């Protein structure tokens, strides 16, 4: 190999390296819109909320005394007689709604995955439609259907399942049904999307080897569905512990959630109190989610979430 060739060879390598590193750093630049957006609209506003939770409450007009530091907001939460009760109810509600959403969502996703052709399309279209319908419409319709004179009670009476009207609104049942309307489509799709990666032939193989359908589901499908169930559960819990619209529209005063309380405090211009409550709620939700993920990881059910 001559010197000239070697020189041009290293030149070429250097040029290629430069081009590569240039293209890598240019690719990194593509992250700027997302990072800038999340910084300005998410990180900084949340930081500001945290700061406000440590400000002094204003005595006269105005929502807070700017530039002051105090634990007024958190003290208010501790002194309040309702916050503790509301918190307990909200978390319990979040857990129940999550378990129901994941269980029903997994069954539905499994049905859609095993179905073929038109049936699969119809089952999936139903979920996508529901997901894309604004929750105001869903809750409004739910209230119409579930009211004592609504279609659900009428049907149950007409078919003789019931001999008296059920109270399905302004109580826990109404709130739970309303919340399921909001989170169920997401749990279904989370599970469905991981099932699409599983070969249907495996289930049939299990059946051919003599496994009962239930056993085939438990030992072949469920292990594969766990990451999807986890993602669905994470979303369901975050949104149910932060439930706001369903309890307001379908519940009564005893189904008040933390999120409703935050709005009440904002309405009373107690900004430090509202901010402190929002900070505590977010922290609790994220800690519960982190614990849940860690528990699933330790049991080896999660590869990547």
């Amino acid at each position, binding site marked *: 190999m001559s010197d000239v060739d070697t020189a041009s060879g290293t030149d070429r390598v250097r040029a290629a390296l430069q081009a590569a590193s240039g293209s890598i750093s240019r690719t990194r630049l593509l*992250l700027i819109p997302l990072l800038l957006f999340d910084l300005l609209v998410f990180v900084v*506003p*949340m930081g500001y909320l945290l700061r406000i939770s440590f400000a002094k409450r204003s005595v006269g007009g105005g929502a807070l005394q700017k530039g002051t530091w105090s634990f007024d907001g958190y003290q208010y939460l501790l002194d309040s007689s309702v916050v503790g009760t509301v918190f307990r109810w909200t978390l319990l509600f979040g857990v129940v709604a999550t378990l129901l959403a994941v269980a*029903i969502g997994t069954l539905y996703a499994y049905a859609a995955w095993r179905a073929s052709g038109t049936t699969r399309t119809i089952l999936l279209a139903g979920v996508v*439609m529901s997901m894309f*319908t604004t929750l105001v419409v869903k809750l409004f319709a739910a209230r119409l*259907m579930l009211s004592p*004179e609504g279609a659900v009670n009428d049907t149950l009476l007409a078919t003789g399942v019931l001999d008296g009207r059920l109270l399905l609104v302004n109580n826990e049942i109404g709130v739970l049904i309303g919340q399921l309307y909001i989170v169920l489509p997401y749990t279904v799709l989370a599970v469905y*999307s991981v099932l699409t990666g599983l070969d249907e032939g495996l289930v049939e193989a299990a059946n051919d080897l003599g496994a009962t359908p239930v056993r085939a589901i438990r030992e072949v499908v469920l292990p594969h569905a766990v990451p999807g169930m986890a993602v669905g559960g994470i979303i369901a819990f975050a949104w149910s512990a932060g439930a706001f619209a369903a309890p307001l529209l379908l519940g009564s005063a005893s189904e008040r959630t933390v999120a409703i309380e935050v709005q009440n405090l904002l309405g009373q211009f107690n900004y430090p109190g509202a901010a402190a409550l*929002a900070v505590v709620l977010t922290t609790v939700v994220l800690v519960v989610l982190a614990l849940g993920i860690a528990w699933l990881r330790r049991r080896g059910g999660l590869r990547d979430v």
Partner: protein
Amino acid sequence: MSDESPTRTDGAGETARPGPTTGQSLFRRVNVGRWLFRAGVGTVFVFLLAPVVVVAVTSFGDSITPSFPPAEFSTRWYESFLESSRWQRAARNSLIAAVGTTVLATVAGTTAALGVSNLSARAEGAVLGLAVLPLLVPGVVLGSSLLVFLGEFGLQQSYLAVIAAHSLWATPLAFSVVRASLSRFDPRLREAALDLGASPTRAFVEVVAPNIRSGLLAAALIAFVVSLQEFVMTLFVSGRDTRTIPVLAWNELRNTLDPVVSVVSTLLVLVVVLAVIIGTLVVGIERLAADT
């Protein structure tokens, strides 16, 4: 090998075939289980779609208070909608917010999906985490934080505030849809274009974009629909002049049951149906369902 069900509609279909060692009792038990399973799935399906049917039917009712099923039918509430300047204002606001969100979320989501491809696993995880985190923070908290923060600049109740709030939800979804689409794209095609002397921009426009076109369109559609239906954050950050249809509908529902709410809900559902149909035609319902 013959199965008594000609169309396999659910999970238990194939499994009901009696094996050589299993007798009639197991066959019957499996059969009962299969029908229970089908009934359950059918109930959930009805449950999911019932609201759409209910609002569509009540929108054609005649009474002052919406009831289901309505006693008499009329189109009078459609006329009141067309005459109401408040609802039209809300419809315009919804459209402005949806278009703004579509642009912002699709651009931020697509660029980020392209950008993370060359990162180390850890850095990619960090970007993903940051992008997804807003989805896990309760809407009321996000709404409150935007209200107090943007309030410092007098920007609360502006279109910008509404678009920013909607994009918090739409961007991670657009990001994940485009990323899924890119994972099906062979990166060597782009490298080939670069080797042949195309600039990165030109390689994206002429090689990458056409190959992930359906993903880009799905991302834009999802962003559009997410914006149309978002409610909780909008309730906090919008004002009288910028409130969207879901917020006005909510306000009406809190006062009286205005039948126009049914009309508006029906029209909103129609727009969504249209979007889902377009999405289905472009990428197929199965991918639309799996990628979001």
